């Protein structure tokens, strides 16, 4: 004790500890940089684009990459580079917005079902199980068809279709966390249910949810592609990576650049979100330094 008071180590107030930890994590930084890169591309698409993304040209159909068309042209002679930039808007939006919708509905439902149990849990869980019985893409297609074809409706449909995963994941975690002594301790000091859920359950439930978010963003981008292909997502001639990939698959051998670049872009963004999510999960955990 005397030794400790002589070598007075004043602990700094650790307020931004999570952010600092995130900054130290190279994988997360790399992932964040990729995501940021694509976000910037999407935002400044009109400034960066070399051609009009909608202008077709019958003299330039399926040209390989060249000085004029950096990433080549598609089946009606549109510049793939420019379309990729504009397509980033639709694809990133589809990924982020639909997952945000799924999170906003799924996590609260999971928290309520898991925490209160009994009849509430039974009602929510049976409903979610019924939703799960329908393949999520089919569900999204049905919803998008019912709501009418537009990108916003596609995102809504993908979000709703992705909700059951979050409900189930959150509920399962809550069931594990709510038996912990510290939750009983929170009740013992007289904390109301809402605050217990907010301060005790939610933070301890979040890490696996964060990881699930990054995975779901990836599948949402691909789901948007499928919906666009069916004409239920991004409306032509507006580009999205998914719709570009879908037309490109008919020309895999003749014009591989048509699929390589949108495919590579999806791959990179998904990788970026995954790395970022992993880093975020580690940064949110105060236990390991």
């Amino acid at each position, binding site marked *: 004790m005397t030794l400790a008071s002589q070598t007075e180590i004043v602990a*700094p107030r650790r307020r931004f500890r999570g952010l600092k930890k995130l900054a130290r994590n190279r994988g997360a930084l790399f992932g964040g940089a990729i995501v940021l890169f694509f976000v910037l591309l999407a935002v400044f698409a009109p400034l960066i684009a070399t051609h009009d993304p909608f202008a077709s040209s019958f003299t330039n159909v399926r040209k390989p990459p060249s000085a004029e068309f950096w990433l080549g042209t598609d089946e009606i002679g549109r510049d793939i580079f420019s379309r990729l930039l504009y397509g980033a808007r639709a694809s990133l939006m589809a990924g982020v917005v639909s997952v945000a919708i799924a999170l906003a509905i799924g996590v609260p439902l999971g928290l309520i079902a898991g925490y209160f149990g009994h009849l509430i849990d039974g009602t929510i869980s049976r409903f979610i199980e019924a939703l799960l019985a329908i393949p999520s893409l089919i569900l999204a297609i049905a919803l998008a068809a019912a709501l009418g074809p537009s990108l916003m409706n596609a995102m809504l449909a993908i979000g709703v279709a992705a909700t059951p995963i979050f409900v189930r994941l959150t509920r399962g975690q809550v069931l594990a966390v709510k038996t912990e*002594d*510290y939750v009983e*301790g929170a009740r*013992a000091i007289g*904390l109301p249910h809402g605050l217990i859920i907010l301060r*005790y359950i939610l933070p301890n439930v979040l890490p696996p949810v964060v990881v699930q978010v990054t995975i779901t963003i990836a599948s949402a981008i691909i789901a948007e592609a499928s919906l666009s292909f069916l004409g239920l997502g991004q409306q032509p001639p507006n580009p999205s990576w998914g719709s570009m990939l879908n037309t490109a698959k008919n020309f895999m051998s003749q014009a591989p650049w048509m699929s390589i670049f949108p495919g590579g872009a999806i791959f990179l963004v998904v990788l970026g979100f995954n790395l970022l999510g992993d880093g975020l999960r580690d940064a949110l955990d105060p236990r390991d330094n």
Partner: protein
Amino acid sequence: MSARQDIILEARELTKRFGHPPNFMRQSSLVHAVTAVSLSVRRGETLAIVGESGCGKSTLGRLLLRLIEPTSGSAIYEGQEITALKQREMRRLRRELQIIFQDPFASLNPRMTVRQILGEPIRLHRLASGRDVDDRVDQLMRTVGLRADWSDRYVHEFSGGQRQRIGIARALAGDPKLVIGDEPVSALDVSIQAQVVNLLGELKQDFGLTLVIVAHDLAVIRHMSDRVAVMYLGEVVELAAADDLYEAPLHPYTSALLQAIPVSDPAARGQRQLLQGDLPSPTAPPSGCRFHTRCPHARPLCSQDHPALEPAGDRRFVACHFWREIQSAGVSVPAATARRSALEMRLGLYRARQAERTQADR
């Protein structure tokens, strides 16, 4: 001191059963955790509830605080039936009734700093606000023997003993009147146990607390409690002042528990009569006296008739049909002395041999 007034917390026929009653789909899986327990806690005393694991002592502790709802019966705090209160009123009352948990690793939120953990009850019950909360937190840290500038750390940065001190500080944060310790030291190293027991004793004095300590270790309890309630399979079988209970246990189960305490002095060891068999399943408690399946004094009546908790002398209660006879039969003294003389002989031989050796070395 009027008898009614100095009772702070009372249990009336508290019963808790877990599980489902039998229906046409499945057999009964009802666990009789606590059965019709009545006892009262006097203001300022330390009451210990002891028994082996599975006897329902922790459940009783939680029933007394209404952390779980009783199947029947009631808990009365300061003349108010807390088992009948609305959730909102109960929450307000919780400030005065606190609990210290057994496992200091599980009882503190890993995602909160110590400052947040200790500040929460203070803010919740509006005991202070703004900067004053921090002052109170620092003060609490010092009260339980921790450095105030450690309060911005997370709990995983502390040792088990330190965490238990944080747990105690949290229980004290709301300025409680009664604290229930659910095996507060049994998860700690023996060297730390004494420190925490002493700390609890000091705090009880300083804050004028009433303590209810749930434990399975009678040796730890002896030093800190005024009265002891012994539980077996969800029932209180004996309730007495600590000194009386340790000197002359009335219930055969209490004597068995006391004999199970390890004695460090070989000469002081008497004849042990250890209990045979396991605790019967609480899903199907034995008929009559629940202890009759393991009791060395059991007679036919014991398996048929359930003994009630009856007064046995000065402020003492026991639930046994034959406690008078068992008491007058006394302990088997000759056996103990016989063993003692045999031990003395062997010790004598050992010392003589040691002396010879030192002689030879020279």
